[in-house]
């Protein structure tokens, strides 16, 4: 499959994860989110931006606990739960948020 953003077509795999993560852009993230039926709010962007920062440093998405901790620091203690992340990304923060952030899908027993 493929997404179109800013007049450019970007290739994705059969599940909608980008084939080339360097082709990501904020406009593209909006398109992926639309396909996932997610309305991007500032809170969604906090998660997506953190995932990208973490990925740039570690070449992998952060563990859920690492993500929860980072989001709590940014958005406040009332957002300190896996549940809150699931409210933002109903298909699961790891997989759905990674997809929107243009990162590869976490694999394994997760």
């Amino acid at each position, binding site marked *: 499959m493929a997404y179109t953003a800013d007049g450019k077509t970007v290739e994705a795999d059969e599940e909608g994860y980008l084939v080339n993560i360097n082709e990501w852009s904020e406009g593209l993230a909006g398109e992926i989110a639309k396909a996932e039926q997610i309305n991007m709010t500032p809170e969604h962007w906090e998660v997506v931006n953190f995932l990208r920062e973490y990925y740039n440093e570690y*070449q*992998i998405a952060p563990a859920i606990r*690492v993500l929860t901790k980072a989001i709590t620091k940014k958005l406040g203690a009332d957002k300190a739960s896996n549940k809150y992340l699931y409210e933002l990304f109903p298909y699961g923060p*790891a997989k759905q948020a990674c997809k929107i952030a243009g990162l590869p899908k*976490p694999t394994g*027993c997760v």
Partner: protein
Amino acid sequence: MAKVPYTVPTLDVLPTVPSIKPGAMSELKSYVAVAAHQEPLGFPGELVANWEQAAVAKMGELLGKYKSLRVYLDMCVKCGACTDKCHYFLGSGDPKNMPVARQDLMRDIYRYYFTPTGKVMGALVGAKPWTRERLDDWYNYFHQCSQCRRCSLFCPYGIDTAEISMAAREIMDSIGLGQKYCNEIIGKVHKIGNNLGLPEPALVNTLEGLEEDVLDATGHAVKFPLDVEGADVLFVTPSADFFAEPHVDGLIGYAKVFHQMGLSWTMSSYASEAGNFGMFIGNYEQMRKIAMRIREAAIQLKVKRIVFGECGHAWRVAYAFLNSLAGPFDFLDPRYPVPQHIMELTRGAILSGAIKLDSSANADKVVTVHDSCNIARATRMGPEPGSQFEYPRFVLQAACPKFVDMHPDATRERTFCCGGGGGLLTDELIDIRIKGAKPRVEALRDVVEQHGVTHMASMCAICKSQFTKVLPYYGYDMGMVQSVHQLVSNAILLGGNS
């Protein structure tokens, strides 16, 4: 991705045999591996041109190598005992998900190419030659088997459908028709050391974060050691324990047990995976290569013991095959089992008083347990028969004041697979994963309604991920799913042990 379609079946009261829905699951196909997933494992990148001959040749090789395979294919008497035992059949009604029908997918081909009557009489004796349609049926239905072996428990001849499904996947890999989910993951283990693809710096960062968290929460400096040469115990756990919830809460529990026992332990960044997907694809060489990482890490870190964390098929490979795959482990301390399950270690520590649990920490819960299929039907956790059932129950009852077992037809050796085992824990198979969980959820609903059960403990990374994903489709909260050692973690008394 276009949303993967699914339907959620209505729960029945156990035991209910569904009416047949032919072809209900025939279109459900897991993603096929591309060359980038296939070739690093030594498999052809795409379906080879002469796949029919190649598949027959590979089947011949396996029949020569694994006598059991030939016996299983020859000896079925079509008694029907297995027909209503598979969770995927019970959830979907698709007759090809009856274990005998799944076996017949291979049996038909076997008869045609490998038996004299099949060669002469063909379809009259159920012998069928390869067609593309049959290969597609193989691919789809052998990836709707979680290799849980519940059917084999009820087969009067002990025919093991898991072994047939493993052989089928091995044959398909050899002709270039592999499954993306399993083969991509195996590639990551070879390259990075674990199923997740978690590189060492990320692992270090994650473990440091856990040390901070536990210190904040308890005031105790519980360590999560990595690559410590000379530690006594090499601890190997599924990489999902580093990443997902409720897995990580179990990891915290293991660390607290080691801490309180005063054991010197370490994890390894090289062998940062307990799971062994080589088994799912029936490939001995892949299974051996993955297992060898554990041996190499044990030698390199000069440990005396190997302990495994909560992971079902990892424990099957460890318990049943580790010695033949990666042994001999004569360099380890012979006083300990090689390898040992964390449940045996924790149980022993409770019995000896090395750790103390205050079960009132879990007084808000009524807990049941899901026996993981691979642990239940293929292993023990200690020397006694049935220890794989008694040890987790002992630990849970020490950690929780209220424990209730589910129906005997859904527990212990009769346990149902979670619905996501054997290489099916992938998003595109969500429909069969939901349906396959139906018998378990029915048994769970029963104890929820009868006994007020609030949580279900699990001892396998796949089970934990599968249930947190599919329970909500049946109206249950994902937070119901707990790691056994998460409940230990809540209850363990830290400190005061010199």
